[in-house]
């Protein structure tokens, strides 16, 4: 048990009713980021979680935003509505064009890509473009933005709500490629680098089998059972016998999150 966790358990461990699902997502995904890493963060929870990581265990985390921002310190209470406004640039080390910051992914300068997701399948493919048939869609979604580029070129962490309609056997449309059809199909498509590393949900943390590239459970959040997570997933999801349980959010982490996003732009 880390010193921090010890301190928390002395102060009284938080229970699920003490935080929202979005707050849980923010905290759990922030913890996956390491000090000294370079993380390309999408809008929403990723933006929030990256800033939280920077303010806790990873002060030397370099955040990249697709607006062209390298190494900023976004101010608490002034979250931007996208990764393309001036609020993203506060105390940045460098500003470049959009094309340049995306090319940093292609050149290999980025350790982790970090985005949200609307729909994901067992191979970690993400859909943010169409619900239903793309040529005759039920719902037209906003589309890829930098998502396709990030997922094509970096090791990925995805943060999203765990619902059966979002965790599907096969996404309606591959906006951002995971492991495509599993095995070596990603590299065969011309994507030899990057790929899904972790999916963080409000139920647990998921990884991918090194061979088949199918999604599996790595850890469950406090109070979540293997049956819960399977019931909320639209495909067969293996839960290893030795699955671990995550440490609940600490009061400190939650306090920072709430200070960051007092208007609940991203944590409602």
């Amino acid at each position, binding site marked *: 048990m880390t010193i921090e966790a010890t301190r928390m358990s002395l102060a009284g461990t938080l229970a699920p009713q003490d935080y929202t699902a979005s707050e849980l997502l923010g905290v759990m995904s922030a913890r996956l980021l390491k000090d000294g890493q370079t993380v390309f963060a999408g809008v929403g929870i990723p933006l929030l979680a990256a800033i939280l990581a920077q303010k806790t265990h990873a002060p030397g985390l370099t955040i990249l935003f697709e607006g062209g921002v390298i190494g900023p310190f976004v101010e608490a209470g002034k979250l931007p509505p996208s990764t393309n406004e001036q609020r993203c640039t506060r105390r940045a080390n460098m500003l470049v064009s959009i094309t340049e910051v995306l090319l940093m992914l292609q050149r290999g300068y980025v350790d982790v890509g970090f985005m949200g997701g609307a729909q994901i399948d067992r191979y970690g493919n993400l859909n943010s473009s169409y619900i239903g048939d793309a040529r005759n869609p039920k719902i*037209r979604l906003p589309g890829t933005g930098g998502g396709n580029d990030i997922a094509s070129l970096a090791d990925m962490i995805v943060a999203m709500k765990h619902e059966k309609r979002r965790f599907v056997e096969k996404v309606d449309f*591959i906006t951002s490629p995971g492991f495509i059809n599993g095995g070596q199909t990603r590299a065969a498509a011309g994507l030899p680098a990057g790929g899904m590393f972790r999916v963080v949900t409000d139920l647990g943390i998921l990884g991918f089998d090194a061979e088949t590239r199918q999604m599996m459970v790595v850890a469950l959040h406090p109070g979540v059972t293997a049956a819960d997570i399977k019931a909320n997933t639209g495909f067969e999801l293996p839960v290893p016998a030795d699955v671990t349980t995550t440490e609940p959010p600490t009061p400190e982490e939650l306090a920072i999150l709430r200070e960051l996003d007092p208007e609940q732009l991203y944590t409602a």
Partner: protein
Amino acid sequence: MTPLAYSDLRQRTRERDRSLREKVMSLEEAAKLVSDGDHLAVGGCTASRTPFAMIWALVRASKRDLTVSRSIMSTEGDIFYASGLSTHLITSWFSQGIVWGVSKVMRAYTESKRARFEEWSHMAMGLRYRAGAMGVPFLPMRSMLGSDVLGMVSGDGEGPADASFAAAKTMECPFTGETLLAVPALNPDVAIIHVQRCDAYGNAQLDGLTFMDIDIAMAANRVILTTERVVSNEQIRRHPDQTKIGFFTVDAVVEVPFGCAPHECYGLYEPFYSHMDMYAEMTARDPEAGARAYLERFYHEPKDWADYLSRIGMAELLDAQRRGSGIYDD
């Protein structure tokens, strides 16, 4: 939208007056540089440095059948559809902004197939403009491969479902044998870009985020700059390394204070959030009727740009300005 033959690209550029000359004019005069059916590229990104004053003038001039491209589209995309200015947008992401949810106006027009939203990856948009800026018909890249985003615009095999979409083609690298994606150049007929300041010749200095604007200006066949301020050429020449868009690409300069309202202009004003919320509310229940009402009140009725700003409101403008200059507080 397929790349121009080089001789055509050169011919179009040769015919332009690229000399050092004054080109300050009104929004209405600048609007005449845009013809129905043109490909219009829009500078800025999402709610940043959107050239809203020029868009406002184009809507008022009743332009039609424009193909409009931009890195990422926000509320201006709704305006393009709802005003009838365009039924074909090319971009990587399109909605008011993640905090407002999926654009209901976009959904209404695209799901009913009255309008198209042609989707490319963000980097593909950037490299397509860059290819256009460089005078080459394509650039190679390493994303979109293996995705359905490529599937919708692929020129491999049978080609895209709709032939008027541009095509991207996979290729084998002549050196490494790797699979790469060749994305075709975009050379827009007209680009509209808003800047913090430029001189009467069109030498523009940008603060903060430049998005894809520099490539767009080089790629386009005509460029309309709107600017918060026109400064002297002397001032530009004192810091030539700060000039980001050169006069030789520019055909019109229009001075329009708060020319991005209700979006932001780096260092000067942030988005007009209350107005953005109001717009989202107006278009929430009946998106088309709401957008029409918005257009009537803010695009057609105002007698001029100052009247448009008045309708947004003085208190909101002052608040946006206070927040905007805050980026320099540290």
